[in-house]
Structures are given as C-alpha cells and as structure tokens.
C-alpha cells in the first residue's frame, strides 16, 4: 500500500465523517448492539469465519480460538454496550464528540482488543483508519465487513490499511491524524509518540500481563487461563503465587492440568524465538537447581507446556506459550512486596482472595481463576474507560 493509497483512504473517511455529523448516536449504538449480538452468538457466521481464518494467521489451534471466542464474547451483548455508553457519556444522546479522524494501530493476535479499539472511536462518530497487527490480519477486516453489512453508513467510516512497519512515508501519512490510538510494546508506543504531530491526541496502550494468586484446587482453572490464547494476551497469567507450603503441590497439579488440557486445546505454533526462550529459561532453572536452590521443573520435550516452581517470589522473564512459573509467598505483604517492581504492568489477577487485598497492585481486572479470559465489554487492558479517552 502506498502513501497515496493511505491519503485516498483518508479522503474517503473525511466524506464518511461528514455524513455522520448529524447522525443520532442512538442509531449508532443500536447498530453496534446489533453487531455485537451478531458476533457473540454461538452460531455467529463472524465467529465461524474468525475460527476458520485466525489460526492460520496467528498460529493458534482452531479449538483454542473457538473456545476463546465463545468465552470472551459471551457477555458482550447489545445491552452491555448501551449500559457502557450511557454510563460513560451520561446518556446515549449526550453531546459528546470524537476527533475528526482516529488512526488505530493494532497489535497482538487476540481479536477482542481489536474489536473494542475499532468500535470505540466510531461510537463517537470519529472515522477510523486502522492498521492491523501482522499476527492478526483477519479480525479488523471481518469487523469492518460486518459493520458495512449491518450499517453501510458506519461501515464507510472505517478503512483498513497495511504497510511495512519500516516505511516512514506511509507511517507519516497514517499517523497524520487528530487522534491516534497506539497499542503495542512500550517501545512501539514511544516510537509512535515520536511520529505524531505535537497537537495529536495520543491514546497509549502499552504492554500488560496477568498473574494468578491461587491454591492447589485452582490448578485446572489456572490451566484454562493459561491455555486460552496460549498466553499471548495481556489477560494470560504468566506466573502463579501460592502460599509457600502449597507451591509445590500447586505446581504438580498445574502440570497435570496443563497436560490434560493439551488434549482438548492443544498449544498452537511455537515460533523459534519462543522455543529458544523456553529452553533458555528452563536451562537457567536447571542451573539454579544444580546450585542447590530449591527449584522444581516440569514439562515435556515438545515444549507443549512448562511449569517451573521457583524458590522465591522474584520476578523472572516470561517466555509465554504455556510456560508458567509458580512462586511461593509468605502472606499478603510478601506478595505485594514481590510484585511491586511489575505492578504497573499488571492487567489482571486471578484469585479468590478478597478484592481489597489485591487492590494495591492496581490491576484493572481481578476475577476468579478460570475467568481471566472473559472480561466484560467495559474492561480495557490498562484500566482506561472505553470512550472517555477518545473524547474531543
């Protein structure tokens, strides 16, 4: 795609934006309510197409995508959307406007953040120019197609563009917008900040991760949280924290649960860098054990899953792809101290502990083990509201 293609897309969006100026928001909310209902149904043609297409693009197994979508979209209803819009804007008909155009830089391979990132500016009648992530070239197109089918006027207000990440001319044209929503690594978001105009409204969504604070009876639920989306999402737990005397029993139970879930929801593709990272982290754990540190390691040669039970609560790298560390803790204060260095990156915590115990960690989502991957529509991965950050 060339710079001219992007500029032409912008021109089409400008025309589409004009058509939205006097449109009642109720009609827009109704259209998106219809769209969400069309997507969340177990018989949804859009879910089916995503299940068909996403595995090839993102490397997930088909069953994992199917179960992940079913669980994630289950509560994304039209009524839930109406409630969010009313709550955030005061009322659906409130005189709230978005920017003339919003450029949305997408990242990762999980469909749900893509859907909310594209829908939010459009709810404020701000046309969207979107660049899909390389690992999910599917969701944005399906979303746009479904929107055109349900509401052609709104459907004209979204354009999907693709260009090489190192093409400065295209990047310049893409980021030349009143509002830019950037999702990605903190390095990517910082690079976007360098690209945009000084008067551009930049909404940043940097990287996040999740953890579990659990007991041995939560092993199966934790395995589900880990297996869905192969730990590729910000709501995937990368580490589990257990009281010290329960850490080893939990690690054993989690290993068994991951082995079991592998039969139902097999791990997807394992890229070479990820396989190397798993080998490296496992090797380093072996070396700690050899040095007399109390570490246990469970996994298999095919690297389908790995559980490393550490001797302490110190944070260590997360290779993802079903690699889980289990850390022993000595009470809540110890947990809070151990997580202090990474607390600002926490998106979710799976635990049945009282919410107020974990609130100091600042995670936007605290839920029961096994439900991390089914956040409500209103949730956003860094705790920001859906619409407020996009208001002009």
């Amino acid at each position, binding site marked *: 795609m060339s710079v001219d293609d992007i500029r032409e897309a912008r021109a089409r969006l400008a025309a589409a934006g004009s058509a939205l100026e006097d449109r009642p928001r109720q009609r827009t909310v109704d259209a998106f309510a219809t769209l969400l209902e069309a997507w969340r149904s177990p018989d949804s043609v859009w879910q089916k197409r995503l299940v068909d297409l996403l595995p090839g693009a993102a490397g997930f197994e088909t069953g994992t995508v199917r179960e992940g979508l079913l669980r994630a979209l289950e509560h994304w209803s039209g009524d839930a959307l109406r409630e969010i819009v009313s709550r955030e804007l005061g009322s659906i008909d409130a005189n709230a406007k978005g920017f003339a155009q919003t450029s949305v830089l997408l*990242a*990762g*391979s*999980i469909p749900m953040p893509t859907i909310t990132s594209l829908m939010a500016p459009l709810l404020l009648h701000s046309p969207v120019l979107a660049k899909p*992530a*390389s*690992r999910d070239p599917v969701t944005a197109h399906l979303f746009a197609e479904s929107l055109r089918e349900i509401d052609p006027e709104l459907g004209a207000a979204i354009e999907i563009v693709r260009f090489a990440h190192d093409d400065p001319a295209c990047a310049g044209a893409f980021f030349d917008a009143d509002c830019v929503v950037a999702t*990605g*690594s*903190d*390095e*990517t978001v910082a690079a976007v900040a360098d690209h945009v105009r000084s008067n551009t409204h930049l909404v940043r969504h*940097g*990287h*996040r*991760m*999740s953890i579990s604070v659990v007991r041995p009876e939560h092993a199966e639920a934790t395995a589900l949280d880990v297996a869905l*989306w192969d*730990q*590729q*999402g*910000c709501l*995937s737990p*990368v580490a589990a924290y257990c009281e010290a005397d329960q850490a080893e029993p939990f690690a054993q139970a989690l290993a068994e649960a991951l082995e079991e879930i592998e039969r139902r929801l097999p791990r997807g593709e*394992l*890229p*070479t*860098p*990820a*396989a*190397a*990272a*798993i*080998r*490296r982290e496992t*090797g*380093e754990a*072996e*070396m*700690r*054990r*050899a*040095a*007399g540190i109390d570490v246990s390691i469970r996994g298999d*040669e095919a*690297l389908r899953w790995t559980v490393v039970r550490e001797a302490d609560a110190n*944070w*260590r*790298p*997360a*290779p*993802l792809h079903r690699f889980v560390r289990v850390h022993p803790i000595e009470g809540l204060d110890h947990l809070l101290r151990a997580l202090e*260095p*990474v607390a600002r*990156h926490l*998106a979710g915590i799976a635990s049945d502990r009282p919410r107020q115990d974990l609130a100091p960690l600042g995670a936007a989502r605290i839920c029961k083990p096994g439900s991390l991957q089914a956040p409500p529509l209103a949730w956003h*991965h860094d705790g920001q509201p859906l619409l407020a950050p996009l208001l002009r």
Partner: protein
Amino acid sequence: MSDPKRQPLDDRVLAWMREGRWEQDDGRFRALALQSFSFQFEHCLPYRRFCEARGTTPSSINDWREVPAVPAGAFKEVALRSFPTELTHHTFRTSGTSGVRRGELHLDTLSLYEASLLPAIRRLLFPDLAEGQRCRIIVMTPSPAEAPDSSLSHMFGCMLEALGTKDSRFCLKPIHLLEAATEPLALCGTASAFAHLLDSATPLRLPSGSRVMETGGFKGHERTLSRDELYASIDEKLGIPESRIVNQYGMTELGSQFYDSVLREPERPRRKLAPPWVRVRVIDPHSGRDAAPGEPGIITIHDLANTGSVSAIETADLGQASEEDGFEILGREPGAEERGCSIAADVMLGT
C-alpha cells in the same frame, strides 16, 4: 597463574593458540574439549549437578557435541568456577543498570583469555598488517583502568598494547582526533558509542585504509538503529564504507570473540568467523539438534579458552549457520514486539 591442577590442560590449549596457525583440527579440538569437560565436571560442583541431572558424565560421552551447554544467563546467578574461590584473580561482569543482576566470569588467570583474543583480532580485523606493523587505534570505551570489570575494555587494552601505535588511545568523544587524522586508523567501540558519535558529527572522511570495529548493542542510547542504518550513517559521516566495518560478537562469559569476515575475505558473504579452538553450533530449539545451514536456532558455543569456568555455553542469541563456515547473528527474540502483552515486562525488566 592458573590452578596448578589445570595447568597441563591450559598449557595444551595455550600451545594451540600460540602456534600462529589458523587451522581447524577436529581431533585436537575433540580431545581438548573432552578433557576440559572432565576437568570442569570434577571441579565445578553446580555444573556437575547440572550435567548429572541431564544424565551426562565424562564417561558417558565421546563427542564434544554431547557436552551439556550452560545458558549464559546462569552466570548471573551461579558462580561457575572450576577452581577454588580463593584463587580468583579477576572477575569480569556483564554490563547492566542498577538493580539488574549482572553476569560474572571469574578467572584464576588471564593468560588464555589474552592468548585467544589476539589471533582473531590480527587475522580478522587487521589482516593487512604485516608482522610487527602497528595501526593507530582509537577506542570509544572506558579504559581497563576506568572499567576493570569490563571484559570489553580489557580486550581493547590488549589490542592497543599488541597492535596500536603510540598515539592510540581510549577516548569517549574522539571527534577532534578523527578530524585531525591524516593516517589510516581503526575506530572501535560499541554500537551505542557510534550512535552517539554520529549524532553529533559533521560529515568527514577518515583517511583511506581506515576501518571500524563495532560491537554490542545500543544500551544507553535513546534510539536503536538497525545494523544497515548504522553502517550507512558511518559511511555518510565518517567515510568508511560497509566493506570496512567489522562487527565483533563477544560475550563476557566467553574467552574468545568472533569477527565479521569482510576484511579477511572481502569477496565472500559477510559472516562471523571463530578461532580454531572454538566451535559454534546453531541448535534448533524445537528438536535440540543442529539446525540446517540457513535455519534459525540458538547459538551455542564451545570455547576452549574457558577452561577455568564452563566451556559449553548456550547464548541468548539466535543465529544461523552459513553454508560453508561461520555463522550469522539474527538477534535476540526477533519479532518479540509483535507478540503478546507479557513480553514487555521481560524487556522492561532488562532481563
């Protein structure tokens, strides 16, 4: 002076390094690698336990490829010495910001380290220097006195002493030296140091015959350049073409280093070459076996210069073997940015 128990082994390795020949000798390498493994298995308890847990002992193998490789990150957590602690003569540390654990290579002697580095430098960075000839060398790092625990500074110190002219020096901001240069020189430093230099330099042309040696990454610099961008900028600002820019690949945990082939073999593709007493394998992390040439894998190095620690080290870098000899570095975790949210914490914690 190394641990007397290891001296016979060190002497054999040193003899190879000092012969002045650059010839692959599989039989000699195999014998020394297996002897090193036996010694390290016996004298480095954590390594012994690591190997035993993998079911490998000196008596169970007869191929150096079966020697278990320790992940380089282990040097951050475990003191991997194959000699008594009290004989520690020098400790090199990996670079790192405060709060981040640094890897440590403990040495009871610097003799192997120093004997290994010079043949590679002579052959691959200064292939055009006649015996006894010297070159003006400017190094953009702290000197060994300023950074005694930096293996890179130590290496440059050895280089200056062995091959540098009297006006060679360490200089972090050498622009005035470069502007005044009239004779060919070698400008060396980290990629980050070059990025800083190029940010402030007005274009100049270093004397014909000059060369650049760059190593490491962009730590401490606000932006990261691709290797192509860095080399294009060096060409534009310093007048040194890509064909005279050598990348060095080295690690604190290793006694030997690797250099691009461009000055030694300008007509052949750029790749990293290793001294004969080092073997580099590219391991497919899925299978644990050697990756085919051109296929990505974990760079794993067996360095006989490491008799005092552990010789077989699995690096954190991905690479690919070249068709004939040598290897290429693909970097650390390419594509990580595109992956899920959690990777960021890994990156941000500097691990």
